[in-house]
């Protein structure tokens, strides 16, 4: 595979002195550092603390995002009132928000969790809104004809029907959460992957830096894969939507 070939090329170029630099350690050295870091728990702690922060921010942002998204789609006054403000805030780069927020929330976890939740909120709320708005009206008519009251209709019909789009938003949210976690730790960090990477950069310890990057790659890949599998499980039915009769 290409990946293997590239790794080999990396190894060879470093060892053979093709690229002569302290910042280009051989891949094998990086692996050694990685294994060592995992074994003594250091890298695990670093990545673990980042993931924990990310999870908190993600759950917070998603919960609010989904709730607001549903409200935006179903309650017209809410949409007219809040949507312009949301559209106005959305293009503001999160990095611009971090330094001012340091004055308000300090440099601890609170700051990062808030930033993650804030960033994740937008795609999730908007995707949820789009999903709920695009629920096939026939489902609502079915519910009406069988006398389903509104709260049950929301729970049993509208939300399941909107799931595919809600999940699209959640998926985007995961990627964003990871990015914002790392960024916030780099700018305002005392712990975690972002902070660690910056420390390694400062100390010019390239090998350790790459070790963390590799670990991060694997973790990010695993999260991504896991999420996709979970999504497929929940909305199995969406793939086969265009079955006979439609």
């Amino acid at each position, binding site marked *: 595979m290409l990946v293997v070939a590239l790794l080999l090329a990396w190894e060879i170029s470093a060892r053979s002195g093709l690229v002569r630099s302290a910042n280009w350690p051989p891949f094998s050295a990086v692996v050694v550092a990685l294994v060592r870091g995992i074994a003594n728990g250091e890298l695990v702690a670093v990545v673990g603390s980042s993931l924990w922060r990310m999870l908190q921010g993600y759950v917070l942002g998603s919960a609010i995002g989904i709730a607001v998204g549903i409200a935006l789609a179903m309650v017209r006054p809410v949409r007219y009132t809040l949507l312009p403000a949301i559209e106005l805030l959305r293009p503001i780069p999160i990095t611009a928000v971090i330094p001012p927020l340091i004055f308000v929330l300090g440099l601890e976890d609170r700051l990062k969790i808030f930033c993650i939740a804030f960033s994740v909120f937008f795609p999730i709320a908007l995707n949820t809104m789009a999903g709920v708005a695009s629920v096939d009206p026939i489902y609502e008519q079915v519910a009406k004809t069988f006398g389903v009251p509104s709260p049950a209709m929301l729970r049993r019909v509208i939300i399941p029907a909107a799931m595919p789009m809600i999940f699209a938003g959640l998926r985007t949210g995961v990627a964003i959460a990871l990015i914002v976690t790392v960024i916030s730790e780099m700018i305002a960090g005392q712990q975690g992957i972002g902070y660690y990477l910056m420390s390694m950069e400062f100390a010019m310890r390239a090998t350790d830096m790459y070790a963390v990057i590799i670990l991060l790659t694997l973790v990010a890949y695993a999260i991504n894969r896991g999420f996709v599998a979970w999504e497929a499980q929940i909305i199995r039915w969406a793939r*086969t*939507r265009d079955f006979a*009769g439609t």
Partner: protein
Amino acid sequence: MTAGEALQIDSITKTFGSGVGQVEAIASFSLDVEAGEFLSIVGPSGCGKSTLLQIVAGLMPPTSGRVLLGGRDVTGEPAHMVYLFQQYAKSLLPWMTVEANVGFGFEHRGKFTPEQARVRCREYLDMVGLGDVAHRYPWQLSGGMQQRVAIARALSAQPRVLLLDEPFSSVDALTRLELHALILELWEKQQFTAILVTHDVDEAVFLADRVAMLTQRPATLFGVMETELPRPRRPVETNELPRFLEVRHRLLGHLLAKGTGTHDGP
């Protein structure tokens, strides 16, 4: 098992939109439907049959006029009237199993324990011959089977009036014959009032006690005809009776004249 009720449809009109772009779908429609009868409504494409049925079902408000079920005004979502959708495949909730879908039909009309609900679902699924696919999902079934699930769901709500909106137009001919037999069998057993909307004259005559004809849009009632055909209906024999051909001839003539009302009356 509750017997069907009578319906009075009184001077229903329906206009969509307002101002210059408005469309008058139904000009004025009045009809009395007897309790327990099977009524078919035919009309040219796009004449507003489905709209009329949705108004009767309470899914859409009329611009004027009213519908009385057993003497009571129909507003909002009336109990005891169930609407069978034309797009049955889309009307089944794809994230629920067949059994859950059938349950959806009656769960919100009363209090049921999970056990009671399951028993009732099974009962109706067996009635349509689908007892063994209860745990499948709608998208795993063929078109004909999906329509049968929709029928089971509709009947599980034990309606007094069943409104069918061209329910067999997208299945193949043989399946359609099976479904005709099924619907008639269930109707005779459960004795609900049935109103079927279709563009297929043969189907309309085969199933019904009376056939109502709509004109083209804006739709009005052109006339009503008694089919006067013996029951039980048989798929081959009934269609060959002289009376069947006579009724069919009249109806087709009306439809082909595009229901402009210039033809001879029924």
